[in-house]
């Protein structure tokens, strides 16, 4: 009997949480003539980095997938969240990897207080020079392969630039939010903002490093909403 009650309670809890777990899905498309990616030639010129690649490494200013989908766009709730509500930082740790002398991923999103792991997967050193303007900047070296340095950003800030001065073409970006409702578009421009997003109207922003910001309005109903946005080539 006890077990039956427990199962029933769990099912009820799951159903309740599902009712509050809203998500926004959509696609970011790019309009206009996309400039072709260019080879990052210094990688080839660097003995250590060049040896890690058999194909040319290209710039990722515009990464466009199927049906003009634009990758590496940070998508997040800009307005509409309950005023004054605070959120707990997710327990998962986004990973910023330095692999093959490039940052993977190019764009990372995290919440204030969430731990971000910064890793060096290469067999030689990199330095991570964080050029935050609102958060505290830092610069440390990762001299051994596999080294992971966790970092926590304590303020919301968009497009914090990380660069490696050892290999100056290497750069990555971190967007930090004061809520957990954010995502990064995948290679085809698709994104999903997950979390306990209550039903309601929201303003969503899509932020691309080169194209800039575009805003859209969306209403989450029954825990679901779809929003497609377009960014113009700049």
């Amino acid at each position, binding site marked *: 009997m006890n077990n039956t009650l427990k199962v029933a309670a769990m099912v009820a809890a799951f159903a309740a949480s599902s009712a509050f777990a809203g998500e926004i899905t959509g696609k970011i498309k790019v309009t206009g003539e996309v400039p072709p990616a260019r080879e990052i030639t210094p990688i080839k010129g660097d003995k250590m980095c060049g040896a890690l690649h058999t194909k040319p490494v290209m710039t990722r200013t515009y990464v466009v997938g199927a049906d003009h989908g634009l990758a590496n766009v940070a998508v997040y709730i800009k307005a509409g969240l309950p005023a004054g509500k605070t959120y707990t930082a997710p327990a998962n740790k986004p990973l910023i990897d330095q692999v093959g002398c490039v940052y993977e991923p190019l764009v990372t999103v995290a919440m204030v207080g969430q731990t971000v792991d910064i890793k060096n997967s290469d067999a030689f050193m990199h330095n991570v020079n964080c050029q935050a303007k609102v958060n505290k900047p830092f610069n440390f070296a990762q001299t051994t392969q596999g080294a992971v340095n966790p970092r926590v950003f304590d303020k919301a800030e968009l497009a914090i630039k990380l660069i490696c*001065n050892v290999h100056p073409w290497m750069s990555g970006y971190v967007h930090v939010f004061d809520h957990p409702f954010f995502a990064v578009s995948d290679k085809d421009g698709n994104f999903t903002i997950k979390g306990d997003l209550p039903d309601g109207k929201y303003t969503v922003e899509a932020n691309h490093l*080169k194209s800039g910001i575009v805003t859209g309005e969306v209403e989450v109903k029954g825990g679901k909403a779809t929003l497609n946005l377009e960014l113009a080539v700049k």
Partner: protein
Amino acid sequence: MAPTIPTSSSQRPVWLFRFACLVALATLGLVCIGGLVTSKGVGMSVPDWPTSFGYSMFALPISMWMTGGVFHEHTHRVWASGVGLLVVFLARWTAGSGSRKTLAGVGLVEVVAGLLLMRVNPLWKGEAHFLLGIGGVVLAAAAVGFKNSPASPLSVRLAWAAFWLVQIQGSLGGLRVVLDSWAIGGTTGGTVFGMIHGCLGQVFFVLVTCLAVSLSGWYPRWPRRAGDIGGAHWVFLGTALVFGQLILGLWMRHQHAGLAIPDLPLAYGQWWPKTDPESLLRYASRREGVDAITSLQIHMHLFHRINAILAFSTILLAFRSSRVHAKGHPLKILGTTWLHLVSVQFALGLFTVFTDRAADVATAHVAVGSMTLAVGCWFCWAVGLHQGITLSDSRSLSDSGLPETPVVP
């Protein structure tokens, strides 16, 4: 005013002069490597100072030294240490054995200050290690026992100036690393200290070359109190413009404004481009990468171009005025050399834009800029002597700088 008879060049301290030339060359090399560090954007590849990745600067494993931008940054540090060492010993040699007491005092104070600084605040550990290191070198120079007389008072003053400046310069280079992320007046400590470090590097190079000139056999042959020369103002103005140009160039390099305007001679197809937000966005869209272009970057770039034309024209006028002198006259030699240098410099400036600010071209632009400034300063100096404006070396006509006892190289 009757011109005085210069001292015979054969009586000059030849080996001291050669050593000073070596230091000047080493300093030019240092300027080049420093320029390369900025051109390649690798200044912060070694995040700590004066240690490198926690190692003593002189014990960094070769494998780490040879990795990417670490090669340039660490070489700059080691080379700078070498120049510091050379300058301290140059000061000891130039100022004679009488300088040993002063050197011992300075070295001791630096070592004690280093030890105190380390105890006061661990944050200042870098500066403390630097003081301990340089203090040790100064004490070593004080321990050099061979007896020699000082060179001319002017040379001694220049040597002491170089002695102090090299230490300030080294310290600033360290602060550029340690305080890189400090916010200072809307910019970062790295930018501020990097610019001061770069500017002082040029001044230091000029100083060391002036010291070498003062020890040379050529310097006594510069005419003294030989009367006013026409066009002297062009020489002074040209030097001031070159110095201004170097500061503008430094600012551009440290603010990444070198490619804020990609075309020449026009700027985005106009003589004076628009800098409203829409235009700036349009300019930024033309280039790879996501960094914005600011109106300040564009304006500074334009001022650099305008000042280049002004400096070139002024040096051309200075050259013209120097042509009245006979072949072999120091002013004529200086005028001709200056014009050649500024012509090369002008061409390198154009190439810097045409090659998308290729690091080696941009660095050559910095190096030739330093040489142009140095020759401009020598020219001002020579003109001043010619017109009877003595800087400080009132004994220069009688004091050959010859040591009383032979100098052991």
